[in-house]
């Protein structure tokens, strides 16, 4: 969009360059941090293993949620509300499993071990 480029060229206030510099530094740092996990995934066999692991983690969460919901329905006779609620919870648990398997969220034990992030 032409408007945007005009605005960007016009925005030569003092501090913009400095802010951009800081941003690129932060980006570099973030890239460095995530670099090792990327190189781990280069091998296709590892990638295949990873894919199997992630999909099974996700599906397991949903299935367990569904099973619990069904059991709650049977026990309390509130069909289909148990299934609805627990399927949603199971979906959330599946996503949590997924993120944990991908090392994007710490394991419970590690998470409690860690100090809160600074800044």
């Amino acid at each position, binding site marked *: 969009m032409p408007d945007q480029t005009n605005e960007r060229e016009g925005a030569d206030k003092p501090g913009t360059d400095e802010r951009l510099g800081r941003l690129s530094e932060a980006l570099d740092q973030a890239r460095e941090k995530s670099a090792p996990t990327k190189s781990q995934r280069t091998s296709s*066999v590892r990638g*295949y*293993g990873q894919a*199997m*692991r992630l999909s*099974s*983690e996700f*599906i*397991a*969460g949903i*299935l*367990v*949620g569904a099973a*619990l919901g069904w059991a709650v329905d049977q026990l309390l006779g509130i069909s289909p509300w148990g299934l609805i609620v*627990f399927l949603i*919870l*199971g979906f*959330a*648990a*599946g996503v*949590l*499993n997924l993120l*944990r398997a991908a090392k994007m969220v710490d*394991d*419970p*034990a*590690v*998470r*409690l*071990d*860690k100090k*809160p992030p600074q800044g």
Partner: protein
Amino acid sequence: MSNDPIHQFHINKIVPLEVGGLDLSFTNSSLFMVATVAATTGFLMLATSGRGMVPTKLQSIAELAYEFVAGMLRDAAGSHGLKFFPLVFSLFMFILVGNLFGMFPYFFTITSHLIVTAALALLVFGTVLAVGFMRHGLGFLKLFVPSGVPGWLLPLVVAIEVISFLSRPLSHSVRLFANMLAGHITLKVFTGFVVSLSSLGVLGIAGAVLPLALAVGLTALEFLVAFLQAYVFAMLTCMYINDALHPGGH
């Protein structure tokens, strides 16, 4: 149907046996489990019989396996975790040797049955629960309560954590079983193509080269998967044991 890709997973009774209405027959699956245990035990006994300062070839294979599993366990669960070394090492060797046995033609793959992998995963799950509650009592439940969560969110978060915890044995067992099952079916289907194509004459034989090459590649991949899945299973066992030892983090 010699080309039936599922045929290789059939369970056949070798010694029929029924106790009190329960079918306790000795099947081909049992036979290969016994063979796996016998081969693993026999190999390790033979390899460690010399106990030389300078290891022989066999001994260094056994030492390599030991170091591999011990390192994995130490990394995941700390030096406390080494108490569980026998469990993790047995699981790793059983699954690895069972998977590799499955690579022999006409052999039965024990890990391609969900009931076998589910039993292994439930063993790990039960161990984690027992050890967790024995060591920490009700403090083990801290595993489900992450710190720094606002109170009104807590019921939701705990429910999600509990479901996530309960889904572990499922994903743990299904992963191993599905990998082995899918790999063996694919292999059988591709080699089946080779046979049925090559019976079609010269053109068929020329066409059979492609699935044959694929089957060779898949066989190599299957060997890798056999090792990788044993590794993944043992690795996750280590991580779960870590949860049992340090539910609140130390």
